[in-house]
């Protein structure tokens, strides 16, 4: 295998090096790529969509169709990971572990019995007490991470960022919660069902916006059709349309990241999470 790999690699590399000799010089302002399409984007974005961040404008408007499918890719990855890993345990294990929340006493209970009082929480076999420092600091930081994520989504028009980045940051904030506490805490806050539904809803917001444009009589994804709904002029409508789809992307990405994480890290058994 190693030899094959080496040969293939060298062949591919040789081909690429051979072809790279014909490239326009690196960072040449007059290369075809820089002179053919991009000037239009750079010069007309502000006029046509009123969004200073050209990347956002191109991403969510000119090539919004790509981005819709990009979100779908994430969504389908989420579903794929779910369908691959999630195991619904129908049979409870014989003995379960419970821990008293206030005192930290752990106990083992046979199947069919319930813990003596409501103060007990269910823990898994690999349970270790959460570290105080990490737990506390993360608890304090998570809201800030979240507000930052939302900020990134909301300000995608003016500064780098947008739905995807914001969504990942939001997702990361919840992953931090899972890491610093445990997966059960996360599931308690955000049930699996909610998570899964929100994934779809996020993409649905995106695709639905496009479909709305279609219903309003213009082409799919032509946000200027939204002008009549949002009561603004068509160019501003494009800008707002971009924001709406970015929010959709944000929701979808956040939930999918959490979904994938919880499945991967727990091998599909949420009661035994990382």
């Amino acid at each position: 295998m190693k030899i094959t790999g080496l040969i293939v690699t060298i062949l591919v590399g040789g081909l690429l090096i051979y072809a790279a000799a014909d490239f326009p010089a690196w960072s040449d302002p007059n290369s075809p790529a820089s002179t053919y399409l991009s000037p239009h984007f750079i010069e007309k974005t502000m006029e046509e969509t009123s969004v200073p961040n050209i990347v956002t404008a191109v991403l969510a408007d000119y090539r919004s169709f790509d981005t819709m499918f990009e979100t779908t890719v994430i969504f389908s990855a989420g579903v794929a990971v779910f369908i691959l890993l999630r195991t619904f345990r129908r049979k409870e294990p014989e003995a379960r572990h419970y821990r008293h929340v206030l005192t930290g006493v752990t106990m083992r209970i046979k199947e069919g019995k319930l813990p003596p009082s409501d103060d007990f929480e269910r823990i898994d076999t690999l349970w270790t007490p959460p570290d105080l420092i990490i737990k506390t600091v993360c608890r304090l930081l998570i809201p800030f991470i979240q507000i930052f994520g939302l900020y990134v989504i909301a300000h995608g028009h003016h500064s780098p960022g947008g739905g995807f980045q914001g969504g990942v940051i939001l997702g990361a904030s919840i992953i931090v919660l899972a890491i610093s506490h445990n997966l059960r805490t996360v599931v308690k806050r955000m049930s699996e069902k909610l998570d899964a539904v929100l994934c779809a809803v996020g993409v649905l917001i995106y695709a639905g916006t496009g479909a709305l444009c279609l219903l309003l009589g213009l082409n799919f994804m032509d946000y200027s059709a939204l002008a009549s709904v949002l009561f603004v002029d068509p160019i501003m409508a494009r800008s707002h349309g971009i924001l709406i789809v970015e929010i959709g992307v944000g929701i979808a990405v956040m939930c999918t990241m959490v979904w994938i994480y919880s499945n991967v890290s727990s091998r599909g058994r949420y009661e035994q999470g990382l």
Partner: protein
Amino acid sequence: MDTIFMYCSLYVAFLMLLSLYRGLVGPTVLDRMICVNAIGSKTTVVLVLIGLLYHRVDMFVDIALAYAMLNFVAVLAASRYFQKRKGLHDEV
């Protein structure tokens, strides 16, 4: 001033290379974690420096901030591994 910033960045990059030694050589996974943590904080500075070089620092701080936040997540996750799986070397 730009020149200074540029040389600073280069210098930080050099420092990263130094820290990377631990990342590559080890000897334990934890040393690699230290390395990544160290590289993370240096990267944050480089990001801001590059922002200043572009004269658009307002655009770059967001990245740096996100970076600082998420670097922390990665390290936490890696260390979480050892909370659950005892033993520096894997069960072979």
